[in-house]
């Protein structure tokens, strides 16, 4: 269970998240939809622990453990994963080296033994095959020269390798054409499991045609203003956010 209670977050002194509460039980996929400026990406960064996203109040717990006091790498080791809207390119750092450093750092933090290079290679190849990802991609520098679709697929592969308990997917659909969207959504669906919660952040209903959520939450002006089943996404697609924006103003 991932739970957020009355979260307040400020960026540069301006409060962006204004008392947000949400819980995602293990095994469920929830979606947060909202217009530009609602604070969706701020929520994602604050939960992952980015500098400059100041938590002013409230709590966020994963499996009952508070994560907000932890460094980003400690949150990751506890099983939190953020799939970035714009994955960062790092020239000179092979994707494979990066992924092995990440897995071994998490294992070390949890008191588990590091994975040897040959074992790691086998493990990653199997995960890549399951997601139909070309393992040649792993030899390239991290995200450098990757297409939009490849970047998001590599995010999914990282998730498959790091096996988080809870993953936040920030605007996974941005920068993808329809075919890439379908492939990435297939990758994400393959990673759904009874132990893992997912929070999918998007402005468009389109992504939710492919990643079907159990619950949909509408976020406006830093709060959740409505929650419902998958039908809520369809209603938003028809009616837009106007009703909620007016109520929030």
């Amino acid at each position: 269970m991932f739970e957020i209670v009355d979260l307040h977050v400020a960026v540069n002194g301006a409060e962006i998240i204004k008392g947000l509460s949400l819980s995602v039980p293990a095994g469920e996929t929830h979606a947060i939809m909202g217009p530009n400026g609602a604070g969706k990406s701020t929520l994602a960064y604050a939960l992952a622990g980015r500098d400059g996203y100041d938590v002013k109040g409230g709590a966020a717990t994963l499996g009952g453990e508070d994560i907000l006091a932890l460094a980003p790498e400690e949150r990751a080791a506890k099983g939190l994963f953020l799939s970035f809207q714009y994955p960062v390119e790092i020239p000179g750092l092979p994707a494979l080296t990066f992924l092995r450093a990440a897995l071994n750092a998490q294992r070390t933090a949890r008191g588990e033994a590091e994975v040897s290079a040959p074992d790691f290679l086998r493990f990653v190849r199997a995960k890549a095959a399951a997601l139909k990802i070309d393992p040649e991609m792993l030899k390239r520098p991290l995200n450098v020269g990757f297409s939009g679709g490849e970047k998001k697929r590599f995010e999914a592969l990282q998730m498959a390798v790091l096996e988080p308990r809870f993953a936040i997917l920030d605007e996974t659909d941005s920068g993808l054409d329809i075919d890439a969207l379908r492939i990435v959504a297939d990758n994400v669906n393959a990673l759904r499991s009874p132990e893992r919660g997912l929070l999918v952040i998007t402005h468009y209903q389109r992504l939710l045609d492919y990643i079907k959520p159990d619950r949909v939450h509408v976020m406006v002006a830093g709060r959740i203003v409505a929650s419902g089943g998958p039908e809520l996404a369809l209603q938003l697609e028809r009616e837009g956010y106007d009703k909620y924006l007016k109520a929030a103003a």
Partner: protein
Amino acid sequence: MSAVAQLPNRRDEAWKYSDLRAALADDQVVLSEGRDVIERLAPGVQRMVIPAGETRLFVERMDSPYRDARSFEFTIEPGATLTRVIVQDSTAFPLSMARVHVAAGARFTQFVLAEGAKLARIETHVGVEGEGAQVELNGVYLCDAGRHADLTSVITHKTGGGVTRQLTKGVARKGGRGVFQGKIVVEHGAQKTDARQYHHGLLLEDGAEIFAKPELMIYADDVQCAHGNTAGGLDESALFYMRSRGVPEAEARALLVEAFLVEAIPDGLPAELHAELLSRIQSWLRRRPS
């Protein structure tokens, strides 16, 4: 006027970031007339000729604890290849000056790994003296507190069709100083020259210093030349990306800086030498978390 006073200080344009007079003030230095200052300080010139069509690798280790001035002259005959690698980790006053003549179709590759010293200067003057000569002049400096590394070069294209690729990268911590001075001259007749010069420095901490003086002087009209120079801090979004995947901050910084630096190591070095250079960079980055 004493001999020491004849050493260049910061008023001398070619030494504006490396005050040799102040650095050697306590040493007894007697200069004879003529030639470049490092050549005058060196006991003699070491000369090496790479015969036409042959390939040589020349690895220099500057690890003397004393003042160490060296002067070289390399002549690379037509179609020959010289790869010169300098590993500088001495602490006193390592000073190196090389003049390199690159003939038609010859190739000169240089890589300097400088950890700096009280004052370290590695100066390279390359003459592109035959059609189609190729030069790759790269370097990495790693300047910890109290260390000064100065990589200075002048590459002069005297004939046409030559290619220069220059990539220098470096990092400095608080109290460390990195200097890059790179001049590329394309003389009047050196048409179809293709020259690229890049220097990128990373200031790892407040109080680190990086000075750069890139220069392109082009007297020919049918050439391709480009240069770029940056100095800044580590990319915070890359750092957060790595930490969000579980890599602790100090290790994430080391991996990012390593990725930044290794781009300057030329391709094609012998594997064991490449591994040594990489391991020196890795251990420097992890010696004290920045």
